[in-house]
């Protein structure tokens, strides 16, 4: 080990779910750790260290991103949406409700990221086909459900009939 990298820091300002935060963060800090450890928004999760699992998925200026694949400083002045912002006044969004109705979650660890990927999909394509849904969530790993009920829930949330 040649030595420890020089630690630099920078002030980052973000708007998350309508609230503006300003924090000084180390330049190397990942966005997911910034959200979880610095802003205490622990809804988004970490399931891998290679960008494969999608548990940390959030919307950054409306675009779906894996927040472990970005540095916090890259999010400076961005608007971020996370799972904590989906419900309004304690009322679950139709997507959240559909996840519960169709048993699309078990342990719930992948669910926040899964919900954000599905949210991004439904904004793009309000009545997606099964194929569109599976493509949209292919970057999110779930180890509990086998995805069948997740696909069903996303479809139901879009107002389409699903087979019971």
């Amino acid at each position, binding site marked *: *080990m040649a030595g*420890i*990298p020089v630690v630099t820091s920078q002030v980052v300002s973000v708007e998350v779910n309508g609230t503006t935060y300003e924090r000084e963060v*180390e330049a*190397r*800090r990942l966005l997911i*750790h910034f959200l*979880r450890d610095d802003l*205490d*928004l*622990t*809804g*988004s*999760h*970490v*399931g*891998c*260290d*290679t960008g*494969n*699992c999608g*548990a940390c998925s959030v919307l950054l200026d409306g675009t779906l991103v894996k927040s472990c694949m970005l540095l916090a400083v890259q999010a400076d002045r961005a608007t971020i949406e*996370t*799972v*904590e912002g*989906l*419900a309004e006044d304690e009322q*679950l969004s139709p997507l*959240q409700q559909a*996840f*519960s*109705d169709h*048993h699309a*979650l*078990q*342990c*719930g*660890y*992948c*669910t*926040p990221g899964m*919900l954000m990927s599905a949210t991004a999909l439904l904004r793009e394509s309000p009545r997606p086909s099964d194929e569109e*849904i*599976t*493509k949209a*969530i*292919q*970057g999110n*790993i*779930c*180890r*509990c*459900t*086998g*995805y*069948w*009920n*997740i*696909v069903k829930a996303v479809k139901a949330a879009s107002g389409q009939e699903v087979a*019971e």
Partner: protein
Amino acid sequence: MSETTTLPEPVVVEEAEPKRGYAGQNVPRKEDKRLVQGEGVFFDDVRRHNMGYVHFVRSPYAHAKIRSVDVSKALEHPGVLGTLTGDEVALLTDPFFQISSPPGAHLKDYCLAVGRARFVGEPVAAVVATTRETARDASELVEVDYEPLPALTDARQALADDAPVLHDEAGTNLTWEGVYEWGDLDQAFDEADRVVKISELHFDRFNSTPLECNGALVEFNRGTSQWTIITNNQFPGFAAIMMGPAMRVGIDKLRFVTQDIGGGFGNKITSHPQLVACCLLARKLNRPVQWTEWRTDFHLSMSHGNERWFQDTEVAVKNDGTLLGFRTTAVDDAGAWLRYEPLGGVIWAQVTPGMYRWRHIRLDFKQVVTNKAPVSPNRGYSRMQHLWFTERVIDIVAHELGLDPVEVRKRNYIKAEEMPYETPNGCVYDSGDYAKMLDTALDLIGYDELESKRADAESRGRLLGVGIGSTLDSGTNNFGQSRLINPELQFSGNNEVATVKLDIFGEIVVTLGTTPQGQSHETTASQVVADILGCSVDDVNVRAGHDSYWNSYAGFSGTYASQFAVTGLGAVKGATEMLAEQMKKLASVVLGCAPEDIELAEGQARMRENHEAALPFMALGAIINANNAGLPEDLDVTLNCRYVYRPPFDPPDVERKYGNLTLTYAAQVHVAFVEVDPETGVYEIVDYAAVDDCGVRINPQIVEGQVMGATAQALGAATHETFTYDEDGNLLTPNFYDYHVPHALDMPPLKTGYVESASPFTSMGTKGMGEGGGAGIHAVCAALQDALRSRGNPIVYDSSNPYHRVWELLSDPASSRRRVSVEPR
């Protein structure tokens, strides 16, 4: 019968007594509201003032002598709070208790490597710093002087003269062996028309890779010498038994707390070494410490599933396909340490004959240690390997004798009218109708149209194959089976605890000893409580998670081994019935009648004959908790009831290796259609049916969710997931790039169905379920073998069949065929 999600009829436990209520209904999950809002509390979400972050320094060698560990440079690094090394650990702790009889009993297993590293990724030292990043940086400043030693990576070579011996204390790599023999093998082979010989089959190494890795936040209370361990360990009862003696403290000093756990599947049972390291650091540094395992660390070091070779198998069979018996040698690769092993050496015996009636069985189980990650329970633990073997045997026999696998199964399945059925080794299959399950599964997938589907696939240049997997999910362990491993052990039976109380404002509060990881215990426990107390499920507050200081904790508390519907709900039912009796007794005193005159309904205790004479639950709670003057002195009512469920077991007969090892036997029959591209070996599962029987289902939607999850994991294991090592002992699949778990696009169309055979041995007719039996692995293996029949008739000999292995079977079928021979008698 086979519809997937239609509401069932009200549950009928005893035919004369139809019971209506929440049990049997798809009650929405109580857990969901917090989880879909990101408001679950997983261990890594918890913070403490001044907490330090732990990072483990891990061995880059599969096998090496540790000459020295120098932490001085790390300690000088800004932000580092302290370190822990193997030398310290050897002074401060005793080796973990070993389950094994000798020679495995002699292993000296500590929480960090002491003197020698035995697999890539083994923790050698730990560093604590003010941030995760600093701890990780500083761990690179720890200087470890290694002297590499030859690595043993193939279990089959563990006994060779030139094999490196991993543990000098044991003196051999064969750490445990047990020869099991039941029935009369000579007679079986005398009676046989043919003997089918299979030289070697291989069950691959993988695990369930829960999405949340292991970890803990550990606090030490200096004044009381107690540790609070906020963790996702899924079997705190086992962790406490391992940790207390090693740390030289009573287990009351160890408080385990969890709320939400991000999947477990057995893989979170053996985190006790890392938890001990965290406890030592919290005490040494006098501050809370937090450890979150990285994904790569999980893959390198945590809870691989048992890899097993089946060698020199001989099967005695009649010409009509009647199976008489088999003998085989199972060589089980435990990895470097026996963290839960050698329990796998007996747990397979819960399902000795699989679903079949053969009575003459001999299995020589040899467990060896290798320079790979230690194995630990993994969904389907040890039975899955054995069931894969028996299913492979069935299909190879059918294939080689030119018989129909459906007919061979039906001819040999234990019949519904033979239930309860005692297996050759004394296990009692409680109930089931396997032939009906198979018919249901074949109907669902459209087996009638098999030939037209084959023709259609052929017209597209594809080979279509069909495969069946029929397995058992034995649940509710009799821990007395551990005595077959080590007669000195003083474990037997099983237990689980629940408390139910009525609080001051009428709140119904339930605590469980379990540690759910997605199995919906809050929901199903509420269903059982509400039905007994005559209230709404919304009125029942089941505390989320586990706390070993709640008094709902016993030696076997936890969530593992397919048992909650029996042990957990059995405890909930027992405690709630006690509470109901007390509520009736109290109401009878207040209302001036006999307890038998009182019923509980609509949130009230009221007189059966006069509903006006009623006390709301709130009044009962208030009287006992806050307004109790004047109550009769001998009124034995606390409205706070604790029940320990204890299944009816005897210790097994150690000499004969005989006895009932588990209480219930859920069953699975899966059928897969696969299409193979003969040019490349690339294949697709084009259709799939899964039929499950777990007795009475408290919440069918939740049961179906478990069936789906177990199916997905089996398909992942069958197709792509593997922990493959190179010859130097480097894991080639240490992350989700290389270790490919199923993604949404990988999933086949799925049809689910069920058969409901109530267990006669449980109070609600339920059976433990959730592990599945790995039926998907067998179904895919059998379907591939069927598909490739016209291409040289290869034998599928491995549980893991990624495309390249299928291509090998296509390009060189003869070498696989050399594994099998059929000899007439």
